[in-house]
């Protein structure tokens, strides 16, 4: 287990270095930072001095080393646009995106798993087939369309929940949460549902496929022959054997949820990292883009590593294979 842990961590560090290199290349070669930061009144001498101050005259490796060293400490420099610390900018927006993605994930599991189980054990009934059909539509609808439809129905027509923004937030240290106020929770509902819809259909279809597979297995038949009640077989014996792929997919897709949140955030005017990134792109604000890339990749890689470790914890067979 220890060897396995070390291997996985080394792997994760390597991937992060590769991402850092990419971010650095964008940072370094997509336009001259000095030109981007400078304004017309700046003299040539000022420009050279700024170039020196930013360390742009050092060798490539030195610069990359410095970039990685700084990034590891959460220092991505300052925004070209407003001169603020990039990390601070991202940290301000981070909780909004995180809450959105987390709530979407929870929704996708809470809704997707039972639907998957039901459609698997009642396959052939009209409601199972209906859900299957709807899920195909769910997979193919672009998320901004879903978002706009949700706004139209629940916010504009029915007026049940706010159409945009985060509502009131409460500050817990540096983390701002919308979960503690009624307006915050109400505001979360539509965007997280819009973001979750695709994921719900994925979870449902995966659970359904896995369940049908597992229900055919010998140990399920043997459990029936031992007199284990049906529901206990479904939810204890069979579902547990389906959870590995679900956990994997959920964790792997969390990264894409954060990436997709970009669209949802734009539709719902959600003040998260995605909106920050969009603004950065329009202003060619390289440090912010590089910082966003690194942070999102870091979340990706961390989750992947945790998934592998979780695997080893859930499945005793893997646990022994890696001992």
């Amino acid at each position: 287990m220890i060897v396995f842990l070390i291997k996985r961590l080394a792997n994760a560090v390597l991937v992060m270095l590769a991402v850092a290199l990419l971010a650095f290349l964008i940072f370094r070669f997509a336009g001259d930072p000095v030109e981007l930061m400078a304004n017309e009144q700046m003299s040539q001498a000022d420009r050279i001095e700024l170039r020196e101050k930013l360390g742009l005259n050092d060798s490539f490796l030195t610069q990359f080393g410095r970039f990685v060293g700084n990034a590891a400490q959460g220092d991505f420099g300052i925004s070209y646009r407003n001169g603020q610390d990039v990390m601070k900018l991202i940290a301000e927006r981070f909780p909004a995106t995180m809450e959105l993605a987390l709530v979407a994930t929870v929704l996708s599991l809470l809704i997707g798993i039972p639907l998957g189980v039901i459609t698997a054990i009642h396959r052939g009934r009209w409601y199972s087939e209906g859900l299957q059909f709807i899920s195909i539509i769910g997979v193919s609808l672009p998320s901004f369309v879903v978002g706009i439809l949700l706004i139209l129905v629940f916010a504009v027509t029915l007026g049940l929940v706010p159409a945009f923004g985060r509502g009131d937030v409460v500050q817990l240290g540096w983390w701002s949460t919308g979960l503690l106020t009624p307006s915050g929770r109400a505001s979360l509902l539509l965007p997280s549902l819009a973001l979750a819809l695709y994921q719900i259909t994925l979870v449902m279809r995966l659970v359904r496929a896995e369940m049908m597979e597992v229900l055919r297995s010998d140990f399920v038949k043997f459990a029936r022959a031992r007199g284990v009640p049906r529901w206990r077989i479904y939810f204890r014996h069979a579902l547990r054997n389906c959870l590995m792929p679900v956990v994997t997919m959920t964790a792997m897709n969390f990264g894409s949820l954060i990436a997709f949140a970009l669209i949802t955030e734009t539709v719902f005017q959600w003040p998260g990292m995605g909106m920050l990134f969009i603004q950065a792109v329009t202003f060619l604000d390289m440090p912010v883009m590089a910082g966003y890339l690194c942070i999102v990749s870091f979340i990706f890689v961390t989750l992947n590593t945790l998934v592998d470790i979780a695997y080893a914890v859930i499945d005793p067979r893997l646990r022994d294979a890696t001992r």
Partner: protein
Amino acid sequence: MTEHLSSAVLDVRGLCVEFPGRHGTVQALSDVSLSIRPGEILGVVGESGAGKSMTGLAVQGLLEPPGRISGGEVWLGGRRIDQLDDKQMQQVRGRQIGAIFQDPLTSLNPLFTVGAQLVETIRLHLKLSKADAKARAIQLLKEVGIPAPEARYDHYPHQFSGGMRQRVVIALALAAEPKLIIADEPTTALDVSIQAQITSLLRRLCDDHGTAVMLVTHDMGVIAETADRVAVMYAGRLVEIGPVAEVLKNARHPYTRGLMGSIPALGRRVERLNQIDGSMPRLNAIPAGCAFNPRCPEAGPRCRKDRPEPAPVGTGVAACWLNAGGVL
């Protein structure tokens, strides 16, 4: 027709199973009757597809829909069980009928310890506290010959060898002291060197507990060594049933004789039982009259016209015109 009616643990009478399908209904079992007394092992043999497993599944109420019992009765310990609903059958399965499957590698849930699976079965059927159930589980592991049962209790299935896993499966089958165990080819998937250990374990446990066993197998050697009586099936029908020694020495049905011909000498093992010329008909193409007639060396005109009913012959029962007035 069925012997020892009153004292039988299992009494199957004229059991019919059918599978309605797109191309008509398939008769998977047709008029199967057999009974097993306490402490008795009934061997069930026949070629692949003869309906051996189907008989066991029908008794346990585990037919896969749309398969259903379309006729006959199943009595267990004096109670009719073929009409019970699934909820009621849950209390029969495991409690009164233990099951042993063919492949011990896949019979156990890989994600639960053997202890957890034993305790689950025990507590489903017996009113025991967690601690008592655990003690009983360890006792069961010991009884089926698993070394260091206290330590093994917390192990997962993959940590056991095939033979040891089958012992765990047997412990699970015994967990609630059932009256009947249905063992469907319990040794087929095992190493030859281990097969004998498992069958003799089964024999011993069944003697100790007075458990009746329905032992489905392809192996006439196993039948000869462990079974008290043997039932021979062909194309979803029971063709002969009788005491093992009698059937081995003096089979009444030509199909049984064909099967016996495939044992070179008593006690030697034979892998498969298909030494008779030709193959068993598909269930939707069973010939009129005696299902065996196209392959039977002794068939006569009557065999192609009328179906022979199982009838007492000597100490057993056989379904063949040779024993019921001739084939002409």
